[in-house]
Structures are given as C-alpha cells and as structure tokens.
C-alpha cells in the first residue's frame, strides 16, 4: 500500500494505523534515507501501541527498548499482548558479524515488536521482516511511504 504524508503528524498517524494491525512478535523494517521519516514513524508507532516512552533516534544507542505502560488509545485486544518494543538502528554498522554483539535472537518474542531502521545496511537479506516500510522524500515535508 502506498501513502503520501505531508507532515510529521501525518507520518505518525500512518504509523499508528500500522501499529493497530500487529499482534506481537513482528519484525518491522524501516527503510529510507536520512530525514525520510523513519524515527518520526517510530514515534507514532510506539505511542499507538501504548507506551509513554520518549522515542529518540537510536543511531548511537543502537538499541532502545520501550515498555508498554498503559492500555494506550487503541481498542485492540491483540495489542495488549505486546509488552515491549525494541527499536534498532543499524546506521553505524557495516558488517553482519557486528550483529552478534546484540544477541537479537533474544528479542524475537511474542510479547515484543521489533522496529529496525537501516536494516538495508547489510549486504544480503540478514533479516526476514514481517513488514517493510519504505520512505521517500518528496517536496518539502511531503513523504511517500510504502507498506509491504
């Protein structure tokens, strides 16, 4: 599905819509250039799943974890199974071998949704995302976002 958003708020609203369709255990890939809206999307996503955590860019922290601490503004019983969100950013990586240090196998759990920025840094298909969201710059604040 292709969408066009005209502001950060619209990007976040789109993210909330996607969040509502998840049931837990999903790996969501966020692919796009610098400034295309990946972290903004993550902010809308995390908030919609029911976390009050401050979502900041994980470029340097590499892995941020947000706990679902309220039932959120979404009335979807499936969402209450999701207890945490792991927000990754591979921008600073260059080699698949560096992933070992993260022990990501431990994060793939039914109560966890993984959001990963820059998974495309790696040469081959290291991850098998359940959903891939692609972001493209258009004029000014407009973005073209595709959800697969």
């Amino acid at each position, binding site marked *: 599905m292709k969408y066009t958003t005209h502001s950060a708020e619209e990007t976040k609203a789109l993210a909330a819509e996607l969040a509502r369709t998840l049931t837990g255990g999903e790996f969501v890939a966020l692919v796009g*250039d*610098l*400034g295309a809206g990946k*972290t*903004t999307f993550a*902010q809308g996503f995390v908030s919609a799943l029911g976390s009050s955590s*401050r979502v*900041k*860019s994980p*470029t*340097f*922290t*590499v*892995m*941020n*974890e947000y706990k679902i601490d309220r039932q959120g503004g979404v009335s979807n019983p499936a969402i209450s199974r999701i207890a945490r969100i792991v927000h990754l950013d591979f921008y600073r990586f260059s*080699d698949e*071998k*560096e992933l*070992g*240090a*993260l*022990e990501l196998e431990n994060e793939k759990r039914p109560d966890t949704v993984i959001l990963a920025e820059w998974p495309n840094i790696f040469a081959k298909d290291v991850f098998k995302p359940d959903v891939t969201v692609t972001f493209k710059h258009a004029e000014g604040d407009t973005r073209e976002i595709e959800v697969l």
Partner: protein
Amino acid sequence: MRILGIESSCDETAVAIVDGTGDNVSLVSSFIRSQIDIHEAYGGVIPEVAAREHLQMMFPMLHKAVAPNGEGIDAIAVTVGPGLAPALRVGVETAKALAYAWGKPLVPVCHLEGHIYAVWITACRVGEGLRPSPTATPQFPALCLIVSGGHTELVLMKGHGEYERLGETVDDAAGEAFDKVAKMMGLGYPGGPKVAELAQGGDRKAFDFPRAMNDNSLNFSFSGLKTSVLYMLRAHEAEMQDVKFRENIAASFEEAVVDVLVKKTRSALLRLPLSPLLERGGAPILTEAPIRSLILAGGVAANLSLRKALEVLAKEMKVSLHLPPFEFSLDNAAMIATAGYFRACEGKFADPLLVKVDPNMDIV
C-alpha cells in the same frame, strides 16, 4: 581513596585509576582501547567488532593499570548503563568478579553521570608530579549540558548524585546531527570533528538553517536541521566539490547547533535563581540556592565553537564554567572512576553478586 574505573558501554573499552581526597580527584592512569595499538596486544590480529573485543582488551588493560591482587585499590567503579547489554556485561562481570575476589566494594555508575564527572578530574599525574587542570571544582547547584552522539539534555545537579532533567532532545542528539551531516558531505570518520574543522574556514551566516523548538520548553530538536542541510546539499549538487561552499555549509550548520544549545542553556539559567538583575522568562525552576556553575559534558564537549560560546554565556550569567579536558570528553574510564569516587564517599556500594547491567538506564 584510590578507585579503579571500568567502562564498556558501547564502542569503547576503558580502564582507569584515580585518587580522590575531599573534593579533589587526580588521575593516576587511563587506558582507552581505541587509543591502544592493538597489534601490541595481539601481534597483528585485528579482532572483529563484537562484545568479544571488549573482553579481549579488558585484561591487557587491567594488567597495565593494576596489580593482579588489587593492591592499593579501595573500590571499583563500573558503568552499568546505559548502553548495549552484551558490551556492558563485559565490564560489569569483570568488575563484579574483581570486587568479589579482592574483597573490595563495588560502585555501579551511570555512563551519563560519568560524563558530568569528567569536569571533576582536577589534576593529572605526569611523571612524579601533579599537573593541575585549568578548571576549578564545580559548586552546587550546577546546570549540566550533556551533549554527545546519543544524548542531548539539560540536567540540574543539586548535589552529588542528585539530578533533575530539565529538557532533552525529542529526536536526534547534537552529536548525531554532526555525524550525519559529515556523512552527507562525504567526510570520513570521525565525522563530527571533521565538520568542525571544515567549519573553521567558513562563513557562519552563509546559510540560515532552522533553529527548532523556538518555544518556552527546554527541549531540543535537531532532526529538522539535519534534513535542512540535506536539502541544501541536494539543491547545490553542482557545488558539492567547491571548498568554499563546503566550508560555508559546515560553518552555518555548526552555528545553528551551537546557537540552539546555547539558547536553551541560557533559557534554563534564566529560569533558575540567579542574579536578580537578569531578565526572566518562562516558569521559574525552584532550587534551594542560586545556580553557581555550568557544566558541559559528553563527546560534543570537545567542540571548540561550543566551548567558546558557553564561555561567553557563563560570563554574561555570572556562573562558573566547567569544561571537561579534551581527552575526557569522549568515552573513558577516568570519568567513571571519578563518579565512583564521590559515590564511594557516600558509601553507595552495591552487592557484587546482585549487580546487573541496565541498558536503558537514565540519569534520572
């Protein structure tokens, strides 16, 4: 007290020893993995980037720093967070094992707090003598501006270990913005310092990049600035190799970042009890005493423009300014040992058997 500090939160492994007496902390030794010739330790084998690399360098550095039986060490300080769990675990488990085996107390330290304490390293041992650091000891309450690749926040420090977060970035950290602009401009590693270097020859007013969050909050935002630079570079693709253009972009970008950091710091200071002669704005922040000191912390503290701009601000606001020595702005263990010293003074030890890493730890 002599404190052994251990740090392995993310990219860097470090070990250091400091001596503390009263309010004075002097550096005895400091080892930082990235600064060591790895060939020396491994005879030519370059370890791959992984938690394993931390592990492999930990003991060679410990061997240089301290006697195998821990003789002379009064306590061990270790970074427990924030950072990557597997990396943190290397330092934490090493520290726990040493504390247990040597029978010495263990102090868990927050990495961000470590950055703040870098300014408390008041003297460095050079040979047999002590070389004093140019900055004096900060007085409480102090306002801390923490600026690094992963963090940008304003924190009120009421006393040792007593913090209140006043504001932070809502998206990218300032150091991250520098790094990404460097990447956009094709500058190598390390990006931030390369942008700053390029900026020296440029016109800081050539481009008027946006200063975000122009409101009463003490929060920051740098992601819009990053995108603005990206668009400017795309619009002037033909000039990308022109030196003057590149210097101007770097200078104008750096100016925008420093401007925002200084403006928000100034706003924070104006809301705190200060000299009554200064104009106020926004809701006052209560503390028991007027702000005496301004502390700069984190990797971006090495930025010359920022340091100079804060010097001007500190003079205007009549507070003392405390800048970390360049070598202790980036990740290191001396700052961890220093933070650990002050915690040890208050007896804030932890049971080695129970200490765990805290990857999401925050200063507040």
